[in-house]
């Protein structure tokens, strides 16, 4: 099938359509507007539901309602809008209904700017909403990967009755790449034993997240945790480059990861034995694999477009077994591969000690320049 | 002579709010201070003759605790509770 040149946001929207999304509810925000705009003509033309909500809280609660019918439903937004969805997301998790969320991250905190950033990693992965729940989070690094993950996201959401988040930054949303779109899936509405649709010919279904009886709520919490543990077991995803003989390993997700690929190639060209590990599922996080890599690598370089949020997960896996170096750019700055190459070279010159605090040293370097 | 009526108050639901007592046109209802419902309320009951089965008590009862009977059935249930 021929490749087509697509803008990231529109490709994601079309991929969702082909994955059988039945309803989209959203609110405009840069840099994800093209998702909403694309849906605004594409879904009605297919007789599916599109609503530009009055706000993100409204959008997520429309999603909540639609999700309760068992339909494949999604919303998309960017950082500030995602913050406004946190209550709704917690309700959806607590009610154990499936949905797909796309966060096209921008520079923050606050209004920040519309440039690409990875500053929402903690919010998205560590639970921005209240209570104990864990969304599955997939972080593609290219438009093709995003498109390929779209149907996967819906399947995960339904399989674990959970939120599945596609986490990208503004650059993936705004850039264009040649891609192959998946085929069009038919819309299938199963009669789930939990979904609401009118109680015709069956006993009624009630979906709620309130459990005043405390022991019951504890059981629900454990049930949610149980599904999450299954996701932890089944949904680990990552991609590895040039690791076979790598003595040094760069780790980055999403855009930082793909930029690192260029850096790794450049370093290899200089004869440096360096490879790249790019987590795709950032929640659940591939701790085990990172742990294994510590046996092979002399030291790690973690690159992010934030102050080192994923770094904490890396450190949890590394446990000071080998030195870790960190390099991050903030507030929407997109690093150049050259910066990473420089960091690789510096790391090799002086890998530092395993007990060093990488974020600490990075901060001092940033302030020094 | 007024139609003969009767009501039954379901102890499961009655909370002794007295709305029926005050609403009852012939004033034949009162709370049974002797009796306690499982939930610990004094339920309403007919304490004297004269119930017309007008179902006013049932209309005002917030807990649908009242079943109404009437010797000569006239209107369908819905009508009695203000159906259109």
């Amino acid at each position: 099938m021929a490749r087509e040149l697509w803008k990231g946001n529109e490709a994601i929207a079309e991929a969702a359509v082909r994955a059988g999304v039945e309803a989209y509810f959203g609110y405009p925000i840069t840099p994800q507007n093209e998702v909403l705009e694309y849906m605004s003509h594409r879904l009605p033309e297919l007789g599916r539901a599109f609503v530009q909500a009055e706000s993100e809280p409204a959008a997520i609660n429309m999603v909540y309602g639609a999700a309760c019918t068992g339909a494949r439903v999604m919303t998309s937004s960017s950082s500030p809008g995602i913050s406004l969805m946190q209550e709704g997301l917690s309700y959806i998790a607590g009610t154990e209904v499936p949905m797909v969320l796309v966060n096209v991250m921008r520079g923050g905190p606050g209004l920040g700017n519309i440039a690409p950033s990875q500053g929402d990693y903690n919010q998205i992965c560590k639970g921005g909403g209240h209570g104990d729940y864990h969304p599955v989070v997939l972080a593609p690094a290219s438009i093709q990967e995003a498109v390929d993950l779209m149907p996967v996201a819906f399947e995960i959401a339904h399989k674990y009755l959970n939120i599945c988040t596609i986490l990208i930054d503004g650059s993936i949303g705004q850039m264009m790449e040649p891609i192959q779109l998946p085929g069009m899936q038919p819309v299938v509405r199963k009669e789930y034993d939990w979904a609401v649709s009118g109680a015709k010919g069956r006993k009624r279904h009630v979906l709620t997240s309130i459990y005043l009886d405390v022991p019951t709520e504890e059981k629900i919490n454990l049930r949610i945790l149980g599904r999450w543990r299954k996701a932890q077991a089944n949904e680990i995803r990552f991609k590895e480059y040039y690791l076979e003989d790598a003595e040094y390993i760069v780790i980055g997700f999403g855009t930082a990861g793909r930029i690192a690929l260029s850096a790794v190639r450049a370093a290899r060209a200089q004869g440096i034995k360096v490879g790249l590990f790019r987590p795709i599922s950032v929640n659940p996080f591939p701790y085990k694999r990172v742990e294994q890599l510590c046996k092979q690598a002399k030291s790690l370089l973690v690159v992010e477009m934030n102050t080192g949020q994923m770094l904490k997960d890396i450190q949890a896996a590394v446990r000071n077994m080998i030195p870790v170096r960190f390099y991050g750019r903030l507030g929407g700055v997109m690093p150049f591969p050259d910066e990473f190459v420089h960091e690789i070279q510096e790391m090799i010159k002086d890998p530092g000690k395993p007990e060093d605090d990488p974020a600490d040293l990075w901060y001092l370097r940033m302030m020094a320049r | 002579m007024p139609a003969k009526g009767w009501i039954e108050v379901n102890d499961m639901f009655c909370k002794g709010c007295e709305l029926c007592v005050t609403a009852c046109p012939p004033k034949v209802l009162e709370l049974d201070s002797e009796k306690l419902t499982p939930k610990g309320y004094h339920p309403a009951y007919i304490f004297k003759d004269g119930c017309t089965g007008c179902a006013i008590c049932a209309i005002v009862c917030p807990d649908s605790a009242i079943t109404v009977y009437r010797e000569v059935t006239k209107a369908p249930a819905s009508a009695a509770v203000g159906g259109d």
Partner: protein
Amino acid sequence: MFAGQVLSYAAMDIGKEVTWIPSYGPEMRGGTANCTVVIADEEIGSPLVLNPPGVIVMNLPSLDKYELTVKPGGVLVVNSSMVDRDVARNDITWVSIPCNEIAEEAGDRRMANIVATGALLALLPVLTLEDIESALKAHMPGRHKHLLPKNVEALKLGAEYARKHVRKAK
């Protein structure tokens, strides 16, 4: 921006990997817009390049902003219709070309960027003019199809002019 997309389509059609990314930064409304195109044979890493091998600048602010970023030995195409100064660097190959006028000559002012594209490819043959031509054929929206010949003309004129007036890197 449009020139960038044409390049992207052409690269894709000959089976290469390509990324097109618009510039970010404060310029919201009516500022200078620009984009970066990366063409490669393997999976592309960074869509941004610190020192691109080839650069087109259509106006003065862009020249000021990007002249120094061109990779030594790389190519810089300057639209002299909007830029009244020469290129200061002598370690790059560059040409100063009146895109607007040449475009007008070819039949439409708005093809200035196509002219520049022709010039770039003349000096940096990552793609052939034919690649561009067929890309235009394949991807130009129907209602513009009639402009195709003019575009091809503009492309050629740009390339010719560039070959004639190029200043080679020292």
